[in-house]
């Protein structure tokens, strides 16, 4: 008996929503309590895959920022005086609670952000817990971190994070700050405030002293007020280069310590001796992970001209197998774009790409009727001069360029205002080392892409920002050294 060949259709395999209980409304988290905004303002957080309203969240204004900074200042006295082993105790506890609640948090993050459950479950949440574990380990060893004996914390850290990895960016900010004895006021992005508010609950669950962590949902004006507050000692921002520049201007001339992690236009360089099948996977991971809404995305593919056709054919075949749809389905590879605003930006930039003569390609792909969606897209026939080869699109859009020699590859890879990430694909080890040394990018991946680890410092060159997060280097941003 031979079974008739039929398409192997994967039946829907949705992760259950019932593991997360989202309240109809949330307050600001100040001094260990959830509280309304002073002026009573609220905003809605919606699910970008369905446009369903998930919750109504208090919107922090200037008065709330002041209240939160005061609470953090007050808490700083006792918190900073605790021995490192005590800081570690709380951080380990937080890390464990995150692991225990990881399924709940993964579903929440998928609902609020639109990214596939596969990613929140297998990437975001494990990395969040790992980051807290890692910095918990440093807390009682700061004497040995290379910053002299008994390095001191800075005080109150004002932190502003983006919407692309809401909880992970929170972890990158809060874990090193607390491990070094600082207290924090953190503003999550307006489109993804919920996981930060769940984190507030985790702080309470962990018995973290009041005021050590304060969470202020809000828009850009909230962030601006926080950054400008005179009693903030340290400002950490991850987001767009334009806003980063504004913050740098605000902070200039003050005693505030500043780290910025901004945009990128990462080059993924594929040499003719690359492991082709794995390179294709790396290109896919590089630009379609999190719908390309990743500051270190490999958004520029630089492929050696001699293998361009072969590589593009493999890449297109692979893209045709990507599964776009319900982010809660465990088999979904490509989820929703985070907001209408971001979708509009991606749409505008890709239209400009076409207008400038680039050749556009997407696999056959049906987009859901509600929510914000964008099909995985390739652009070929483009040069360094095209807008889509220069501007950060922050979406599932890959610009394909070619090179002839390693020198040309390096020159083109570096020919950008940014310098956050790069990738090198070759089976030749000596070439990896030679090329990596010449790339002006904070992270250079070889024969892989978008791999993250709390032990590895992350940050940019040029307009991608300054300062490093992660690793031993990440401690420096929060120490008075």
């Amino acid at each position, binding site marked *: *008996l*031979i*079974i008739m*060949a*039929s*398409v*192997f*259709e*994967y*039946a*829907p*395999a949705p992760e259950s929503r019932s593991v997360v209980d989202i309240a109809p409304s949330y307050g600001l988290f100040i001094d260990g309590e959830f509280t309304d905004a002073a002026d009573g303002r609220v905003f809605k957080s919606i699910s970008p895959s369905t446009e369903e309203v998930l919750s109504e969240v208090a919107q922090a204004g200037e008065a709330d920022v002041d209240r939160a900074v005061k609470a953090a200042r007050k808490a700083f006295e006792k918190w900073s005086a605790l021995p490192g082993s005590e800081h570690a105790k709380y951080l380990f506890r937080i890390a464990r609670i995150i692991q225990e609640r990881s399924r709940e948090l993964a579903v929440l993050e998928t609902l609020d952000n639109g990214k596939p459950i*596969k990613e929140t479950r*297998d990437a975001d949440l494990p990395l969040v817990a790992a980051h807290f574990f890692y910095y918990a380990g440093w807390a009682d060893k700061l004497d040995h971190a290379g910053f002299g004996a008994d390095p001191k914390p800075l005080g109150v850290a004002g932190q502003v994070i983006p919407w692309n990895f809401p909880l992970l960016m929170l972890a990158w900010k809060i874990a090193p700050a607390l491990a070094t004895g600082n207290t924090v006021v953190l503003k999550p992005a307006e489109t993804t405030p919920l996981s930060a508010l769940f984190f507030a609950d985790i702080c309470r669950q962990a018995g973290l002293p009041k005021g050590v962590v304060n969470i202020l949902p809000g828009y850009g004006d909230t962030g601006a007020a926080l950054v400008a507050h005179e009693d903030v000692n340290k400002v950490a921002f991850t987001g767009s280069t334009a806003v980063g520049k504004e913050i740098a201007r605000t902070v200039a001339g003050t005693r505030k310590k500043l780290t910025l992690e901004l945009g990128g236009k990462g080059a993924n360089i594929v040499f003719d*001796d*690359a*492991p*082709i*099948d*794995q390179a294709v*996977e*790396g290109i896919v991971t590089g630009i379609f992970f999190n719908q390309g809404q990743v500051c270190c995305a490999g958004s520029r593919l630089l492929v050696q001209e001699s293998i361009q056709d072969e590589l593009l054919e493999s890449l297109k075949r692979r893209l045709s*197998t990507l599964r776009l749809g319900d982010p809660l389905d*465990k*088999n979904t590879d490509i989820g929703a774009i985070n907001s209408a605003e971001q979708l509009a930006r991606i749409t505008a930039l890709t239209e400009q790409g076409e207008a400038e003569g680039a050749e556009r390609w997407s696999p056959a792909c049906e987009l859901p009727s509600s929510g914000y969606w964008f099909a995985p897209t390739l652009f070929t026939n483009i040069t360094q001069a095209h807008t889509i080869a220069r501007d950060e699109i922050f979406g599932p859009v890959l610009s394909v360029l070619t090179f002839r020699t390693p020198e040309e590859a390096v020159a083109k890879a570096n020919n950008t205002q940014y310098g956050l990430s790069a990738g090198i694909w070759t*089976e030749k080890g000596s070439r990896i080392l030679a090329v990596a040394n010449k790339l002006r990018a904070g992270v250079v991946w070889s*024969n*892989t892409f978008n791999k993250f680890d709390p032990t590895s410092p992350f940050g940019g060159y040029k307009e991608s920002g300054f300062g490093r997060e992660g690793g031993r280097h990440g401690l420096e941003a929060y120490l008075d050294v």
Partner: protein
Amino acid sequence: MPTTAPAAHALGDVTASDSTLRRFLHGLPGVDTVGLEARAASLGTRSIKTTAKAYAIDLAISMVDLTTLEGADTPGKVRALGAKAVHPDPTDRTTPTTAAVCVYPDMVATAKEAVAGSGVKVASVATAFPAGRAALDVKLADVRDAVSAGADEVDMVIDRGAFLAGNYTKVYDEIVAVKEACGTSARLKVIFETGELSTYDNIRRASWLGMLAGADFIKTSTGKVAVNATPANTLLMLEAVRDFRAQTGVQVGVKPAGGIRTSKDAIKFLVLVNETAGEDWLDNHWFRFGASSLLNDLLMQRQKLATGRYSGPDYVTVD
């Protein structure tokens, strides 16, 4: 001067000499171990439920080469295996038959009788299986013995010693000779013993070597060494058959063997097939599982899907 197998024509004269063959095999793109294994693991997280699971289980059953390759094999054992292949689940006649039974050459005639009229094929290992350490004449006699007893398929082993020594032409010539001995009546599966080839680069080279020499199937392993079929080495071989067809128009089957014991594992392999080689390979003419204990787990899962209850190992037959 090796005889050129038909598939090689599209690739020019790569098998014309030792050096052209070596240059070709060493010119294949390298395999990055970390990336390959990560891709296999990532496809392993696909969640196959309800209707998809029912389809996959029946497909997997239909792809099993139900195998007994023991020194203790007897006609009785082989007849029981044949009966099991024809009616895997005697309580449910809608269960598909397995693809084949796989035995040693001296059991082929018994196996043929046991599956007569059912459509179940008889595969025979040959060429001094599993080590392959015998003279070519002896290996070919082994193959002719199996074919003349009625084997529909021959599972040969390559000379791993020759391969590891870089003597690709010797390996190629042997496969061509065995293929010739199979004639038109038996399809040839070429076993690489991937656990002994050790590196993924070697597995890719062996895959192309086998296909150039006329393999109808490329097969991971004998089941007799420590490392047998894995998701990663099977994924790699699926890439090889996909690329080979793209270049030559010739489709070649893949058979992972050894170590696949659960339905969950089998479904993961089918996901690899689906998302790598594509649906043209989702058919037992092009994909097989070399396994013995897998079948009963597939049957138990099939019963559970049908009844909603998990019955347990006493409700499937042990043969």
